[in-house]
């Protein structure tokens, strides 16, 4: 039954557009799916392999800019960004991995954070190539309706879910978790930790970048401040996974749903709208202190707390 759960959930989601949902609701659903792709991708590297990246915006942004530059400089549809960003993202991940993966724990985290900023600043300064802070605007959108965008991102997230599950249940998954739990032990048990960390990083980078390429097509406008954002991309990615549940299959999906709803809700509040980062920050702090393994990871704990509350 558990095996088929993703197919059932995604089949149900495929029916949703037939309910005649408003454009706004469709937009929210698309954002949730996009964030669940990014979250699942991050989780592969951070949750399972234990390499916490603070710089996933570097991959999201490069995916987005590949699509944008193909359109702007290459004169082809930005959708080509989805297949063509893959080799670029692999090369990017190899370079970042070569530099950062030699560091452990929090130092890896910060090195990736710095890399994310390097990419943002570079995109801002390479004006001939990226238009700098002006950003890139798609003059014509593929569809006015949201339905097709929805199906594309739905397909991408199902694909991501299945890839992650396949990987985690294979030899790779065992190696990833072994590396997370104890890198020295893993190495002495014959696991080439550098190689497998690099594989995890490449997979995670490609999946994140695909979401970025989708973003360009869907939103029709990108600039470095948005797609390479430290807080609004890299940190929110971590929050999606932390809220939902680190190292769980469904955690990033649950986290994406909650974070997107929360972000929209906070933004809609008349006075608190500008305080959304404060509220996110407080939420992050509370989650870390009280639900360190997220809603899915600490589900039994949540049930216990609330179940107990009801009885007494």
């Amino acid at each position, binding site marked *: 039954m558990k095996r088929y759960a993703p197919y059932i959930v995604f089949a149900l989601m495929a029916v949703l557009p037939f309910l005649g949902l408003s454009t706004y609701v469709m937009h929210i659903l698309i954002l949730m799916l996009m964030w669940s792709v990014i979250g699942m991708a991050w989780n592969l590297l*951070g*949750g399972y392999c*234990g390499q*916490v990246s*603070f710089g996933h915006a570097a991959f999201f942004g490069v995916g987005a800019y590949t699509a944008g530059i193909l359109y702007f400089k290459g004169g082809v549809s930005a959708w080509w960004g989805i297949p063509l960003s893959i080799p670029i993202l692999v090369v990017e991940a190899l370079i970042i991995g070569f*530099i*950062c993966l*030699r*560091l452990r*724990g*929090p*130092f890896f*985290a*910060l*090195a990736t*954070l*710095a*890399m994310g*900023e*390097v990419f943002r*600043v*570079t995109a*801002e*300064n390479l004006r001939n190539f990226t238009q700098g802070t002006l950003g890139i605007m798609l003059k014509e959108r593929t569809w006015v309706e949201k339905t097709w965008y929805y199906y594309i991102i739905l397909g991408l997230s199902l694909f991501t879910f299945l890839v992650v599950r396949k990987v985690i249940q294979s030899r790779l998954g065992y190696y990833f978790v072994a590396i*997370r739990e104890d890198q020295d032990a893993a190495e002495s048990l014959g696991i080439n930790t550098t190689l497998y960390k690099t594989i995890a990083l490449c997979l995670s980078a490609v999946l994140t970048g695909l979401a970025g390429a989708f973003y360009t097509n869907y939103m029709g406008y990108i600039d470095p401040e948005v797609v390479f954002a*430290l*807080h609004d991309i890299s*940190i929110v990615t*971590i929050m999606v996974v*932390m809220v939902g549940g*680190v*190292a769980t299959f469904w955690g990033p999906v649950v986290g994406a749903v909650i974070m997107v709803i929360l972000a929209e809700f906070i933004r809609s509040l008349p006075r608190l709208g*500008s*305080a*959304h*980062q*404060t509220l*996110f*920050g*407080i939420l*992050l*702090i509370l989650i*870390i*202190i009280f639900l*360190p*393994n997220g809603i899915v*990871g600490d589900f039994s704990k949540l049930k216990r707390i609330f179940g107990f509350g009801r009885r007494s």
Partner: protein
Amino acid sequence: MDSVALEVLLQTLISGLLLGGLYALIGIGMTLIMGVMKIINLAHGELMMVAMYMAYWLFVLFHIDPYVSVLIVAPLMFLFGMAIQKFLINPVLKVESILPENQVILTVGIGMVLANLATIFFTSDYRSTPVDYASDAWYLSDYWRGSPIELSLSVPWTVSFVMAVIITIALWFFLSKTDTGKSIRATAQDIDAALLMGVNVERMRLITFGLGAALVGAAGCLFIPIYYLYPALGGRFTLIAFVITILGGLGSTVGAIIGGLLLGIFESLTATYIGMGWAPVGRFAIFILALIFLPGGVASLLRRRRLGG
């Protein structure tokens, strides 16, 4: 090299050195916290931002000179740092979770809250503190008539630099001569041994976080006369502090000083010869080069020399 080019180079080196002295102060605070707590404080720059707003308002409301307000702001930041340690970081140190990076993520959360609250209360406007000596400078030709080249030393930059040096020396004195300072160093070197020697590790952590915050707070006051102020500036300085710590060698105070100076000079060179917008890229380039070629930072070079191994 003609005299103009030489002038530009020397002037660039001077301003790099002055900037580096302030960077060193920021880096020392971060490296202290890293050494004792084994965590990276990603709210470090935001703490500096908070201190800068304090100094700014002290100046605007009570006309207290930023250099004087160090004496008010640093103690306040000390208390603020201790409060963060006691009520937020300490509880998380005890939480069991899959990712030990939780503590780092926590400091990110704290930084986000601080930056956002500053935006709400003070708007995201750029502010500068109109001290009347802001554009004063000493010129080489005033002291040496026949000088073939002209160099200038900005008064506030120089004063800030000198104060940063004084604070660093005071800190060195505290760490090496007082009992509390020695206990902090013992905790940084080996927690278990420190516990056995009867050091109150929990208290040392509180003091260290307070001290780190006070140092970066002091740096904030020194930056106020020479820099403008806006809520998002924290993130930038957090990164700078982190780059310095990597460059200097994790947890090494001397390394942080050298790292700060190196970074200041390097940034100043990039800004002059490549372009203002690329200064941050220069910062990261040096950071990446350090990661690849000097993984232990400057401190590892020092250590190698000393032990001759």
